[in-house]
């Protein structure tokens, strides 16, 4: 049991890193969709959010549905709505701390500027996410096997000591 537990910790850490990368990719895809919609048809945020809520899955669907509901109510600023949605759905288990900060910053400025600035903002966010994803991939390559091995080794070590 000790052996399995420790191994799972190592494998879990690797899975979490993979999850960060997967979600970062999803965020980039969402950004690209937003950019496309803003560029192509001057679409407004409620429509874009609705499209993303329909196409999203899991936590992301919840995030955009929550946003959509808040937009319909119009009772708080977009920035604060975004932050509340993040607190509720974009939790640390799924998204890395750095990515969350990038996403939060993006939401705070979304909607309020002109079209050019919206696109610049989305591009900047995309670049930051790409950079962060590159870092995560390198980390996974460098430390992935190490985490797994350490997990198994620490399990064995504990077993030896306890036995």
């Amino acid at each position, binding site marked *: 049991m000790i052996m399995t537990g420790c191994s799972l910790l190592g494998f879990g850490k690797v899975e979490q890193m993979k999850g960060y990368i997967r979600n970062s990719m999803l965020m980039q895809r969402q950004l690209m969709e937003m950019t496309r919609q803003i560029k192509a048809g*001057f679409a407004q945020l409620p429509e874009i959010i609705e499209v993303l809520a329909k196409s999203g899955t899991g936590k992301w669907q919840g995030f955009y549905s929550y946003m959509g509901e808040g*937009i319909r109510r119009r009772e708080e600023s977009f920035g604060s709505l975004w932050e509340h949605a993040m607190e509720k759905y974009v939790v640390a288990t799924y998204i890395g701390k750095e990515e969350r900060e990038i996403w939060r910053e993006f939401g705070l400025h979304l*909607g*309020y500027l*002109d*079209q050019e*600035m919206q696109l610049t903002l989305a591009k900047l966010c995309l670049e930051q996410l790409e950079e962060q994803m590159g870092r995560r991939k390198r980390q996974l390559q460098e430390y992935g096997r190490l985490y797994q091995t350490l997990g198994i080794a620490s399990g064995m070590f504990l077993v030896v000591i306890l036995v």
Partner: protein
Amino acid sequence: MQDEQILKLVSLEIRQCLGRKDVERGNLQEIRIRCGRPLEIRENGNLYYLSKEYGKTQEEELAYMVREEDVKETLEFSSKYSLYAYEQERKCGYMTVEGGHRLGIVGHVWMENGKISNITYVGGVNLRLAKKEIELKPALMNCLIKNGEFENTLVLSMPGAGKTTLLRSIIAQLSTGGGRRTVGVVDERSEIAACYRGVPNKEIGNSVDVLDGCLKPEGMEMLLRSMSPDVIAVDELGNERDVQAVRELVRCGCGILATMHGGSMEDFQRNRVGKILWEEGVFGRYILLENKKNPGRIKGIYDELGRRIEYENYRVSFDYDGMFTSGIWKG
């Protein structure tokens, strides 16, 4: 429904002020929100300050002082969090928002090559609320039709007196029912039809084609060529280019229904553009509206020679909203 819609356009604090019982939201004309200054409304033609505790007041000290956040929130809510989508309109100093209301914006204007490129640091907004539709009785329409033909008509009034509302109602009347005509509308400021994504939000009748956000001269020419309307309607004729386009329409036999600023027939005839139109006899009917204290009320209808049109033995009356509550126009 309309009331709730208005509330959704302004900041949360201002919603509370507007939620006071003594505020007749149905009769509101304007909500003026200026940073650091008292919140002001225009209701039934009168200006009032607004307070959260006391409602309508003339006491400046009691009024709610507008915060920077109120302006920002109002911009966010009225643009549905999408200010960027109103970029072109903002350059003209206003945005037509949900429900056909118009949000005027003031702030720091950025110029680029002699043209306005943006307005930033918004210091104040004026939410001009779309007026209720005016139900036109046949009496008024009869004044505008002569021998079965629509007489080119110009609606004259001071700003805020209901020109556009009346224009919209005439369009609706002309383009609906048995003897309907096809009407082309050039809606330069999205005020007549309040189009959202090309589809009118306002009740403007069935046989109507709208060119939204298009300059008047270009729009009139485009409509004439592409849609062959019986009548073309435009709001606020203002310069020689507009006059040239109107001349072209008249030459082609297309009817014209337009509005212009002017407090009286004399004002109109003195105006640079008005003088040309008057001398050339472009319009066969002039509808003069009363001032903004009585929005939608008709002061008089005049023919091409400036004679007041009289219909003896008939009288028409209006309630506040400019509804024709009875019979036939007397004049």
